[in-house]
């Protein structure tokens, strides 16, 4: 299957001082906001030069998920998938983001391709990215209220709003 090459069984459970777990054979590194940019930069130097995906999960209803010791669960997690084309391996970073202060530094300077993805995460989850060159919504209309992929955003029908329609 699409497995990344397995880390050795003897692989240390930490990488750059951050806990590393194995999720169905995939390498996952757990980060907090304080070390996010720093570790991302180190990973680029290690060869993970391509950021293929950046998304988020709202764990509001599932706070008791399993995390390695030392990682404090927060409501949001930003998930970054990195790819090392040279060595054909992948790594995934799960970054805990708190509900009260949902801000992360932008990866734009490191990976310009995350620009649209960070906008999407902001649009869908309300997590802002500081120093992002264009912090606007991307999929929803600019004046939309709420962030649809949050778990407390109900599913249901909403009357279609037309801009400038006569009322």
């Amino acid at each position, binding site marked *: *299957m*699409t*497995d*990344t090459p397995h880390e050795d069984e003897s692989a240390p459970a930490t990488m750059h001082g951050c806990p590393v777990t194995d*999720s*169905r054979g*995939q390498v*996952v590194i757990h980060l907090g906001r304080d070390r996010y940019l720093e570790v991302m930069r180190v990973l680029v130097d290690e060869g993970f*030069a*391509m*950021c*293929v*995906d950046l*998304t988020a*999960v*709202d*764990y509001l*209803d*599932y706070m008791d*998920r*399993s995390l390695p010791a030392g990682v404090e669960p927060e409501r949001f997690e930003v*998930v970054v*998938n990195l790819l090392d*084309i040279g060595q*054909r391996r*992948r790594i*995934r970073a799960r970054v805990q983001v708190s509900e009260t202060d949902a801000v992360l530094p932008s990866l*734009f*300077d*490191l*990976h*310009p*391709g*995350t*620009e*649209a*993805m960070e906008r*999407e995460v902001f649009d*869908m989850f309300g997590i802002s990215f500081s*120093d992002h*060159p*264009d912090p*606007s*919504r*991307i*999929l*929803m*209309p*600019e*004046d939309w209220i709420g962030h*649809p*992929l949050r778990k407390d955003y109900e*599913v249901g029908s909403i009357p279609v709003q037309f*801009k*400038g329609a006569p009322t």
Partner: protein
Amino acid sequence: MTMIADEGAQELRPRSELTAREVMREVGAVLRLSEAEAAKLGDLPEDPDEDQTMVINMGPSHPSTHGVLRLMLELQGETVLRCKPIIGYLHTGMEKTGEQLTFMQGGTNVTRMDYASPLNNELVFSMATEKLLGIDGDIPERAQWMRMLLSELNRMSSHLLFMATNGMDLGAVSMMIYGWREREEVLRFFQKVTGLRMNHNFVRPGGLAADLPAGWRDDVLRILDMLPERLEEYDILMTGQPIWRERLQGVGVITPAEALALGATGPILRSTGVEWDLRRDQPYLRYDEVEFDVVVGTYGDAFDRYAIRLAEIRESMRIVRQILDRMPEGDYRIQDKKVTPPPRARIDESMEALIHHFKIFTEGFKVPEGEVYVAIESPRGEIGCYIASDGSPTPYRMHVRAPSFVNIQCLPHMMRGGLVADAVAVISSVDPVLGEVDR
């Protein structure tokens, strides 16, 4: 100049409000510059005055935008100075919908994202689900090879659609009809196998929905025998033709470093000479057992991207021929009662089978806790599926990494400084599917 803005901050900002950082976004592919360097880039040689430029909207509904893509172009005469894609017109919250549907039903949702290659979408979703279930190593051989057959035929139909739309966008209108004619042959086969031309929901967690119908081999062979001749016609009509080359060569150029930085995958990345094809480099299914070449370009221009897709049709045909030779007998889905509904015949004679059938289709099956990201090579690049499961029958979070969504970030860079007539060629060469961009 004032703009009548109705998407607010999502729109292209007037030149007077440009910051260096904003310029960096627009030339995002110009790598890791300092703001000062980016600001310098912002001063184009013409150093245009605001009243010499014009902002026009291309789209959202323009025949060459392949759906509802809106591009705001700042033009000076016929030169594109800046460009910003504005998306979201087709956003239907499919990732949110994916959280309401069970793993069993999820296929119907993801298949509608990239509607030009639905089977690849289903495949990546099914593979992610199987990985969470821990059954990814137990999928029967025949199911694997059938998946490969469908995936490759889908790649062919998707690239044939590209041939059609690319021709149409550049004025080779007969090409549009030819491309669709050939694609229709492939879709007819899909219809015979899955019952539908598109949005099949045929690849399911655990295997496939049904076995191949009688006579499938002859149908595939008919397609394989028909296509080479037609592809040669394409070569005569387009590849070697001076007008076609003039329109595409040197247009929308992107360098390998820029493509990598922007996260571009698929034919865009390969057109720059980077050999990266997940089928070969991180093989899934049985791609490590078939022979094929990864086609790469040299210049990273629109012509390379066209030529790569044309060559990939031929490579896919090569793979399909090998699949025909090697298609094993056996089961087309895993015989794991947890994920596989009982056969129809059993339902009439066994109460347990009836209950099982009812349960699996109403409640679905529970998937162990965990999270995975699985990526495969779709015709447009890396399509990935990230699923987080909380142990219930519905995904806690289902995210699809859509190749088109990432790839259209290349547009502003490819168009910068080009002609507005080339803009159409550039959009077309990126081959975005807006259903997937907006999801």
